[in-house]
């Protein structure tokens, strides 16, 4: 079988060859423990600090405020549990209905085990929260607002600046899960009033198992993982040096390529949608492309199930997703599509196509061709579709 054609960049991305090349020395000769006092340890420590600079640069913050973690989920759990642990009086958290499970499950944990009250702000059919809803939800007990920058399933972009300003006004910590935003849209923390932000390397052509938490100067939380006081004491454990180095290089590359990729991906998205609408009837977009990053296309194809469509495409050599990859093992229907008002049947008929830096026009054309073929075939099986 050929290498499959990949349309699931939101789930994860292949490692950029330049990233791997930069990582290799740290998987081979440069293996010193960064905490050790001799030269080969110093070398890995320096490499980590270089990566920290490149990542800080990507989001325009000071490098001393970036703390490496094992990924986006750890970064999210760290800040949510950290803020909660510090807050002995105020026990109210505001979040959105379309957050990643890394946020929602942690909120739920805090509700069940630490007496927090969680307000989940709904979204409109485009998948956007209304800042006024957040303002109305704020009480004297609110200690944290956590809203993602870009949604992983439908790509909707949230009004982060407005939410940040609101939180600033009310003196409430604002956390932003930017795992799906970084590398896809400009993320400039000089202009965004964000108190903490999560990132993950494997979504930006870096390795899996590394990410970071940015903490605004002055934000103080207890660490999630304690021990040898690595990461300025904020996150203990021997550093994933090669992973961190790879993350740094990936950050540099996505920063350089941001506008080029954005333009290219928007072109490819438009090409896909034009072809889709001419080739396949009764097929709808979930969310609103004008309110979303162009790399995420979530579509609903009536009369068939997304699962069988994705399976058939897989057999034909294409990777698409039926929900957020992270939650596809659970039997639940996408909470994001539910949140934008889709029925169970509509959700079951949906697939997510996500485009990335390596996607080509030819791949888009091939996808549409095979998508059409698969849809027609599955519809011909289906008692729910009259052709």
């Amino acid at each position, binding site marked *: 079988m050929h290498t499959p054609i990949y349309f699931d960049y939101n789930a994860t991305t292949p490692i950029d060859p330049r990233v791997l090349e930069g990582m290799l020395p740290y998987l081979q000769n440069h293996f010193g423990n960064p905490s050790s006092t001799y030269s080969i340890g110093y070398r890995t420590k320096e490499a980590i600090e270089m990566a920290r600079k490149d990542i800080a640069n990507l989001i325009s913050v000071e490098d001393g405020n970036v703390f490496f973690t094992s990924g986006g989920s750890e970064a999210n759990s760290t800040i949510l549990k950290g803020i909660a642990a510090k807050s002995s009086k105020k026990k109210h958290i505001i979040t959105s209905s379309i957050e990643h499970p890394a946020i929602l499950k942690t909120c739920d944990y805090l509700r069940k085990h630490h007496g927090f009250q969680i307000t989940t702000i709904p979204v409109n059919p485009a998948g956007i929260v209304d800042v006024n809803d957040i303002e109305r939800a704020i009480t004297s007990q609110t200690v944290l607002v956590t809203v993602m920058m870009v949604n992983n399933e439908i790509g909707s972009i949230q009004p982060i600046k407005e939410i940040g300003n609101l939180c600033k006004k009310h003196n409430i910590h604002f956390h932003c899960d930017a795992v799906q935003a970084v590398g896809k849209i400009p993320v400039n923390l000089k202009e965004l009033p964000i108190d903490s932000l999560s990132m993950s390397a494997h979504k930006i052509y870096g390795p899996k198992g590394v990410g970071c938490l940015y903490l605004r100067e002055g934000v103080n939380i207890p660490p999630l993982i304690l021990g040898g006081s690595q990461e300025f004491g904020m996150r203990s454990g021997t550093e994933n040096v090669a992973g961190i180095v790879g993350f740094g290089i990936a950050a540099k590359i996505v920063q350089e390529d941001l506008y080029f990729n954005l333009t290219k991906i928007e072109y490819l998205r438009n090409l896909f949608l034009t072809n889709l609408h001419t080739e396949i009837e009764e097929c709808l977009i979930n969310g609103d492309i004008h309110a979303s990053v162009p790399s995420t296309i979530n579509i609903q194809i009536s*009369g068939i199930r997304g699962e*069988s469509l994705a*399976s058939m495409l897989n*057999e034909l050599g294409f990777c698409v997703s039926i929900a957020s990859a992270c939650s596809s093992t659970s*039997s639940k229907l996408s909470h994001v599509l539910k949140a934008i008002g889709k029925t169970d*049947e509509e959700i079951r008929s949906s697939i997510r196509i996500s485009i990335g830096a390596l996607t080509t026009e030819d791949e888009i054309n091939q996808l549409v061709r095979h998508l059409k073929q698969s849809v027609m075939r599955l519809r011909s099986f289906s008692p729910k*579709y009259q052709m």
Partner: protein
Amino acid sequence: MFNDIICDHFMNPRNIGELTDADYVIEISNPICGDTVHMYLRLNQEVISDVAYRAYGCSTSIATASIVSEKIVGMSKAEISSITRNNVVEWLGELEPSQLHCVDIALNILNQCANPTKKKFEQKEFLIEGEGAF
């Protein structure tokens, strides 16, 4: 992922279609996931001589309908009655935990094939899915 049997039947389901002059029609919908099979049977002296179906569902349920359809041709209603869960499990091959409820769709089909009642669709509408269904 799918075992080879499921994969084969999903990509090339046997007996897909409708029988315009069916002796019986049966409608199955899986309470867990809402997958739906409409199956048409022709009988010749209490033995199933012809089968066709349409399936809306996941890959495994489409494959399951296909596998069942192949197996039951030539069987009497009594023989179908005697098919056990273990038989079905064997037909379908190794399943992942999340696919195991597909065995129920097969058993549902078999159960109705053994005791078919409806001559045609009372209402050619779709079953209602979701929270309230079943």
